[in-house]
């Protein structure tokens, strides 16, 4: 119990301190807070305590209601302020629904917070990966052209956000969950608009209205739970069966798809990439959007073997393929990473919705490794943006020439996402195995199988297409520059890389039936061969062979654009699938 309170309160207290303290001690405060909460969640992970629970007192409940109403009023105000009817309307709709829920509230008792295996794992990711990102953010914000107070405010926002995330993964009360869901929406909105120019404002408003759809369906699901099952608690709700249970779950799953920016809602996550990079890393890749697969995982036991589970699984896998393909047409590095995030979230949701023991395990493994690898990539992208002022992959041509270290981290990140012996690859391998095993009794999963395979190769193509720009290096006859990374940048990057390797080893040892030699042979090769660098000094160097052509070299990047009609068709299909989830909920 005290542990939960610490996880939630520590970042909040630190955030308060930061706001009213001097900028000099900022990094010490943040680092020690991050260290504390990370060790707490590692402790919880290593020594699991069977279900810790916590019940809110009635005064806390009342405060929650007040906060909720204030938050929705704030959204309405924003809609009014920026003359955005959709934002205003959706906020109003939520307010009405919320009041309706409150009016129908029964007297059933339950736990407001409940910590199980899933939430322990999620909080581990949130505190470790999120923590590393906050530490990185200090270095990132250092030379931003804003007042010191606003810089501290930014860090404080991130810390408050850590606390919100810690709470949301433990929330057992639907109303608390709704409030925190809206808080993450608020965080997205405020942090996307942080730079306060026109583009960020438009994108922030788009993120706001799309995420509010998630809020609306959660409230509709809650209303259903309250009226049909007379409960506002996840665990009680899921112990029921029949009736409109699956319809309620379907509504919650729709909220998950919105939060996970599954198509047709990919627009908001893409727009979110205008935010400062630590925000993209923390909210829009490593932690916040993970609520989406987290929600599906929460419902996985109920979803297993139902029509609803099937529909969610198929939509997820289609998102995986479609987002991977769409990413091939993008030019801005962070947008590419954004689409690859959408794709992988789709994959994870798809596996989670299958709901067998294996696939649930797998989805969890993928969440961990995706968080680590994507955080690494985003932080490296931040360095490129901040230090070398490149955003588009077109501008990254030959980057290795003057930024070898950053390029190394990016390529390492890509390799951890695709290749053995790293965790994410292993996740895909196990996924193929698990789905193949299911094929016999549920042949529809061949769609999932095909999706995993094709989406996987498309993502590989995407990542290494980017490498083609990064890696084109001049001949050794030209002297390459060395790159000095700030400690504030290199330590988080190194930490993440080491974590990926350690976690991969751990995964291989505990979760796979494959012998350790499978992993060690390629790993040893990777280590031994670069040592031969020295041996190459004896060979003469030359320039490239151009077949006598005089043209200067330009590494040509290729793009796959979809025709406008195809894009339209795609959004229609995904829109229909989104509605189809609700329909499947009613039918099953």
């Amino acid at each position, binding site marked *: 119990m005290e542990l939960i309170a610490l996880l939630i309160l520590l970042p909040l207290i630190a955030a308060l301190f930061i706001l009213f303290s001097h900028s000099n001690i900022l990094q010490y405060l943040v680092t020690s807070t991050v260290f504390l909460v990370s060790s707490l969640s590692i402790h919880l992970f290593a020594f699991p305590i069977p279900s810790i629970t916590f019940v809110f007192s009635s005064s806390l409940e009342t405060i929650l209601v007040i906060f909720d109403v204030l938050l929705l009023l704030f959204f309405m105000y924003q809609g009014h302020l920026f003359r955005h009817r959709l934002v205003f309307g959706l906020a109003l709709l939520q307010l009405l629904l919320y009041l309706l829920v409150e009016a129908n509230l029964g007297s059933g008792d339950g736990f407001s917070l409940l910590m199980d295996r899933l939430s322990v794992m999620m909080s581990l990711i949130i505190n470790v990966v999120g923590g590393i990102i906050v530490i990185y953010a200090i270095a990132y914000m250092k030379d931003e052209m804003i007042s010191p107070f606003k810089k501290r405010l930014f860090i404080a926002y991130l810390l408050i956000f850590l606390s919100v995330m810690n709470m949301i993964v433990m929330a057992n009360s639907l109303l608390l969950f709704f409030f925190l869901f809206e808080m993450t929406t608020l965080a997205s909105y405020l942090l996307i608009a942080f730079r306060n120019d026109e583009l960020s404002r438009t994108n922030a408003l788009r993120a706001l209205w799309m995420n509010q759809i998630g809020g609306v369906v959660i409230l509709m699901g809650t209303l259903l739970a309250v009226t049909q099952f007379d409960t506002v608690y996840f665990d009680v709700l899921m112990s029921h069966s029949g009736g409109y249970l699956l319809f309620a779950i379907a509504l919650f799953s729709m909220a998950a798809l919105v939060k996970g920016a599954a198509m047709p809602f990919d627009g908001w996550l893409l727009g979110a990439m205008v935010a400062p990079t630590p925000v993209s890393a923390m909210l829009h890749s490593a932690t916040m959007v993970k609520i989406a697969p987290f929600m599906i995982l929460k419902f996985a036991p109920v979803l297993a073997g139902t029509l609803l589970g099937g529909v969610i699984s198929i939509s997820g896998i289609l998102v995986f393929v479609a987002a991977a393909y769409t990413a091939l047409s993008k030019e801005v590095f962070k947008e590419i990473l954004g689409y690859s995030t959408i794709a992988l979230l789709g994959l994870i949701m798809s596996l989670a919705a299958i709901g067998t023991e294996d696939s649930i395990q797998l989805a969890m493994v993928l969440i961990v490794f995706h968080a680590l690898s994507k955080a690494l990539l985003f932080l490296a992208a931040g360095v490129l943006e901040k230090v070398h002022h490149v955003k588009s992959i077109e501008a990254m041509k*030959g980057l*290795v020439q003057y930024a070898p270290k950053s390029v190394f981290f990016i*390529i390492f990140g890509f*390799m951890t996402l*695709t*290749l*053995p012996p790293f965790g994410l*690859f292993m996740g895909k*391998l196990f996924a*193929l*195995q698990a789905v*193949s095993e299911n*094929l*016999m009794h549920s*042949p529809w999963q*061949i769609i999932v*199988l*095909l999706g995993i*395979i*094709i989406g996987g*190769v*498309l993502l*590989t*193509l995407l990542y*290494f*297409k980017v*490498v*083609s720009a990064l*890696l*084109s*290096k*001049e*001949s*050794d006859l030209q002297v390459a520059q060395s790159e000095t990374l700030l400690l504030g940048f290199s330590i988080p990057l190194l930490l993440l890389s080491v974590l990926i390797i350690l976690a991969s080893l751990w995964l291989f040892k505990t979760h796979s039936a*494959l012998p350790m030699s*499978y992993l060690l*042979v*390629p790993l040893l*090769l*990777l280590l031994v*061969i*670069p040592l*031969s*660098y020295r041996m*190459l000094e004896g*060979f*003469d*160097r*030359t*320039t*490239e*062979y*151009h*077949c006598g*052509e005089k*043209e200067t*070299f330009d*590494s*040509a990047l*290729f793009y796959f654009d979809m025709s406008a009609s195809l894009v339209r068709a795609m959004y229609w299909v995904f829109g229909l699938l989104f509605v189809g989830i609700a329909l499947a909920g009613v039918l099953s």
Partner: protein
Amino acid sequence: MSALMTLLAPILGGFVYGFERVLRARMQRRQGPPMLQPFYDMFKLMEKRTIIIHALHVVLGVLHFFLLWVTVGAIFFGWNLLYVIFLHLFSLIVLVMAGYSVRSVYSHLGANRELLAMVAYEPVLLLVAVGFFLQSGSFEITAILQDSSHLMQMPLLFIALLMIIPIKVKKSPFDVVEAHQEIVGGVEVEYSGIFYEFLYMARFLEYLFIYSFVFLFGGDSSILGGFLVLIVFFLINLVDNATARVRTADMMKIVYFGAISISVINLVWMVI
């Protein structure tokens, strides 16, 4: 036995490659080189003066060879087939990165095409592996080889595999990756001397890799497996001599609409 086979894999592959050159020459009514030509080439290349562009390029090229060697070894040792396919992907990606690491037009074009070719053949390999799994209940190569022949249950998957073999052994109609006349050998173009030899030997290993898949269709009967390999080997060379190169985009279409769809049909038929 497996250890010995693994150790000798590049030499074994060299013989296969030499044999193929003889076979193709005979098909074209030429005398052709002797069987041992790949080895003569090797000695010649080792004597040449080696010049390199930069160290990273060379290291990646050599790493490609060794990873491929490990992959082929993993097949001989009967490892998990999916893992083998991903190890192969690893070696390919290293080659692609080698191609991208130099500022050379042809090398980049070659690497681009390697990647696109990967997008084409990789799904088929994985689907074939899933087919084997449905048959024998395991992805372990040793288990796959203990079942009776898989050919009757997986005819369309076998055809799909045949369609992608030319991509891997760089034969017409799918030899866009190498395409000597257009892009002067692609990724290989910037290698010389001893380091070119590594890439040359990597090609032998590719032969062993892809033909092992054909061998697996024989199941527990290694005679049938060997027979299948021979027939397919002959067929691929026949097709190579009889067809012209198609463009990359067409190759993708043919593989996706042809090979992948029939693989899926075969799998659906197997599970229903």
